[in-house]
């Protein structure tokens, strides 16, 4: 049953009559996630009749269908044709965002624990976390909650055994081999290492959602003072996150 999916293309799986899942693999893997996002972007450009929306994740894109308008066989055929031609395409260039983060202290109450777990000083940990360019692998759990791929493996840490009932909006956290930017206040079992003034989701602001799956993120460590200033601007509707490409 284990097949080399890269050689054989994606597997299509049904979610009843309301969606198909176009599955490229079953692991978290940088190559896989890029391929999912390249495919998802190309699929959305086709504007197939009956496709309501797509939800790309680490390993698959879910294509939500209107069973009244969609011809499922035709969509399947289009998906497989696209997967065959997209295979060699280079990854999509989603937007690259610079996201300011205040690390540690009240902004990231678990920073010292994560540093200790990684066997690093807190400042080395901040450097290691802010160094890579991350990919927004998936947005889920709560509106705007952005799962990033690209975490330095040394920084991974199992989730807390007891989740917290609430962590602040816009927290930067680590859970297992993933890191994320939270959007609104919510429960979490992840370790909070910092907080950004950026609101990934803010009703009434345009755009209401900043980060889209396939976008890339760079973190810029900022002081508590700069955070407060940026936070005031963000509360008034400023984007704060800078689109640098």
């Amino acid at each position, binding site marked *: 049953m284990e097949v080399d999916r890269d050689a054989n293309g994606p597997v299509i799986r049904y979610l009843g009559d309301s969606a198909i899942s176009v599955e490229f693999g079953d692991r978290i893997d940088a190559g896989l996630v890029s391929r999912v996002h390249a495919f998802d972007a190309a699929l959305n450009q086709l504007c197939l009749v009956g496709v309501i929306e797509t939800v790309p*994740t680490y390993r698959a894109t879910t294509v939500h269908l209107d069973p009244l308008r969609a011809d499922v066989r035709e969509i399947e055929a289009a998906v497989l044709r696209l997967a065959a031609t997209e295979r060699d395409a280079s990854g999509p260039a989603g937007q690259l965002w610079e996201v300011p983060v205040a690390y540690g202290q009240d902004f990231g109450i678990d920073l010292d624990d994560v540093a200790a777990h990684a066997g690093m000083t807190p400042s080395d940990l901040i450097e290691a976390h802010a160094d890579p360019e991350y990919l927004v692998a998936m947005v889920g*759990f709560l509106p705007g909650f952005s799962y990033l791929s690209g975490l330095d493996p040394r920084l991974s840490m199992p989730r807390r055994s007891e989740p917290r009932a609430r962590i602040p909006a816009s927290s930067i956290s680590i859970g297992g081999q993933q890191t994320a930017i939270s959007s609104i206040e919510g429960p979490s079992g992840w370790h909070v290492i910092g907080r950004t003034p950026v609101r990934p989701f803010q009703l009434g602001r345009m755009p209401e959602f900043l980060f889209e799956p396939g976008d890339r993120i760079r973190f810029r460590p900022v002081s508590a003072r700069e955070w407060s200033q940026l936070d005031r601007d963000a509360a008034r509707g400023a984007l704060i996150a800078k689109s640098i490409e």
Partner: protein
Amino acid sequence: MIALEIVQCGPGVSVQDAGRFGFRRFGVSTAGAMDRRALALANTLAGNPPDAAALELPLAGAELRVIGGPVLVAAHGPGTTLAVSGRPVSESSSVQLEDDDTVTIGPPQEGVYSYVAVAGGILTRPVLGSRSCHRRSGIGGDVLSPGDRLPCIGSSDNAPLFLTEGMKDYGRDAIRIVPGPQADHFEEATWSRFLSSSYRISPRSDRMGLRLEGPALRSSKGHDIVSEGVVPGSVQVPGDGNPIVLGRDCQTTGGYPKIATVISADLDRLAQVPIGRDVRFRVVSEGDAIDAARRSARWHSSLGLAAKPVSGSSPDLHSHNLIGGVTKGDDP
């Protein structure tokens, strides 16, 4: 301002329409009425399109007061009753209410969700294209409590309507499923246990998910998968082996294996199965699922034609046999 004021209600009351689409890639759940068929019937009686925003009442009844008016109001749900100042109104008709009138909606005695529709729809502010409340994120507002007022428009020229057909029983046939994306993580013996057993609706069920209690289902590949997209109707199996059928408020992605998906035409019926009652499942093909969805949609769009005005200014609705042609079956 014309409004319906909540005088009394149980927990979890919210405004719902067909749901919020187009934002799932940003983690926004669709929400929407748990029983879209009952929503459509209440709306039709109020002279609305099937998906207009209405009040969803889980398990309990409510008392509402009209501010301003007149307004045309209808309620629908399995075993739901409607009374104006103590005088009962047939479940298959709407009623015109004047300023300060009070309506009492009884609990859905044979189900879970009732809907209260008002002519012109409930006019709370749409958020991302829908008035549906998603409780967990707060999108579309919060759940409602006594004292809350729901804006609507007056309807002095609307005659009450009644339905001569379409008021069908939900039936007790098996809920139809299509094997899910991780169907092959469950061995044949597990599948036959799943399909030959009854599962009881747990009291821990809500709009996010219906929890089922019955023979545990073990995945041969563990109960954590890398998260991927889910739909209302996805049957997830977490580590304890008790399946959860996701509801309209479900998250957009999930990390449990999905043994099956309840077909969309059976979601309304499943949502109305009372807590403590058993359900069974049977497998159908994707093609059957699509056909059932199309039949269901045709039924929804034909409802408007089935609604007739009640003649006379003060009809004694109980003298009519309004619930003609009661049928049972899978499809509306």
